[in-house]
């Protein structure tokens, strides 16, 4: 009949990434925003009173969050144009596969933005990320999963409303809090060279959030479609 759940999700994700690669506007916007943000934040603080080491994690996560939102905005707008979404809904793929495919594409997007943001912050704040790089990458990835799980669902919902660009941040940001707090706190500790054991608690919170919300949002997605 049709492809399997995972097969369909990958197919849809590849399609989304192909479109994004073709147009590139969203990614560039997010990257420029990230680099600009890192630069501007630097001047917002007095470098003599607050060290770069203390500032960097906060700036990093602020940029991740808002640049991530920029990417999530466009996630369903391509489906709205010309009713392309109907083409997906009429096919035999399951609604959950559509959600997962979109989320996967968003995950790649957000991770790519995270990489650029990390490089920008490392450059501007003279960070050496040599300590605990795998752990940092793990937190960045898990946080991206959490942001994308919720953001993809809300993107699907808000694209149908009048105040889409305003509503997506308003609805999503409260959900980002249990992602950003653990991730930012852990990042701060790791960059300061603290032992891994100290961030284990935050890791558990983040993993728990990811599991709960990936499942919940996947189950909720079909309810956001008119049927």
């Amino acid at each position, binding site marked *: 009949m049709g492809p399997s759940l995972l097969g369909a999700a990958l197919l849809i994700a590849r399609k989304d990434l192909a479109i994004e690669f073709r147009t590139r506007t969203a990614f560039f916007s997010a990257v420029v925003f990230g680099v600009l943000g890192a630069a501007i934040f630097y001047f917002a603080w007095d470098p003599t009173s607050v060290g770069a080491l203390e500032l960097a994690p906060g700036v990093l996560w602020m940029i991740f969050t808002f640049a991530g939102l920029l990417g999530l905005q466009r996630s369903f707008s391509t489906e709205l144009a010309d009713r392309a979404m109907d083409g997906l809904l009429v096919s035999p793929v399951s609604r959950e596969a559509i959600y997962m495919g979109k989320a996967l594409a968003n995950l790649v997007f957000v991770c790519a933005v995270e990489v650029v943001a990390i490089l920008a912050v490392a450059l501007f704040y003279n960070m050496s990320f040599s300590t605990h790089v795998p752990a940092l990458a793990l937190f960045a990835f898990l946080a991206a999963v959490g942001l994308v799980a919720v953001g993809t669902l809300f993107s699907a919902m808000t694209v149908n409303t009048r105040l889409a660009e305003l509503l997506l941040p308003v609805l999503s940001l*409260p959900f980002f809090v249990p992602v950003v707090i653990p991730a930012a*706190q852990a990042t701060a500790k790791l960059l300061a060279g603290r032992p891994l054991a100290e961030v284990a608690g*935050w890791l558990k919170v983040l993993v728990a959030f990811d599991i709960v919300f990936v499942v919940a949002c996947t189950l909720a997605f079909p309810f956001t479609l008119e049927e």
Partner: protein
Amino acid sequence: MSESVVRESAPPAMAPSTPKTGRIEWLLIVAILAVIGTGVRAIYFTPMDSLQGAVQKIFYVHVPSAFVALYMAFALVALMSALFLWLHDLRFDRVAESSAEVGVIFTTAVLCTGPIWAKAAWGTWWTWDARLTSTLFLWFMYVGYLVMRGAMQDRMMRARYSAVLGLLGALLIPFIHLSVYLFRTMHPRPIVLKPSAPSLPPDMLQTFLLALCSFALLFVALLRIRYRMAVARDALLEEND
């Protein structure tokens, strides 16, 4: 299908009679009297806290409001959301909508009384303690919920989206509470608001329980009024379809 554009109703007026029938809303009158009565008891007939003085009495407004906002209003929103997704009956959506509008009022009351209490008792307007912060995000949840509803005209779609948001919000609250709690234990601050001190002397406990009951009653009364307004508005919309 052209639906006449109807603005989402503003929070309910405090008039004791419903617009449609002129019937007097007895429950609201009883509730208001209960709240006033409890207030009087709290101010004049309950002993003062030895440490904080008179300002501690805000506790009798602050905590019951918080209880109603979360465990009554939001729990009802979550329950109605689940029932709607299961049974697709728009009445559940109406209850959820009404509960959210009344809930945001109580949540606002918590967020107003909290800083007043904190400033008077401990000298700072805001403390990032777990409970107050969770209430702040509860407030954002409510506002997001109501703003989203306001941006949608299609009744069924609005009900579905609201139900999804309501349930996800219910899942979120414990996570926020946990995250902020862990944050605080890692960054201890000298000031800690202890809103629900279980070791209350019997007089204060009684007043507290009375306050709790009267606020709960007020919630139910306001909910009923708001629900009736929603019913009337929907009936009007259906006539125009």
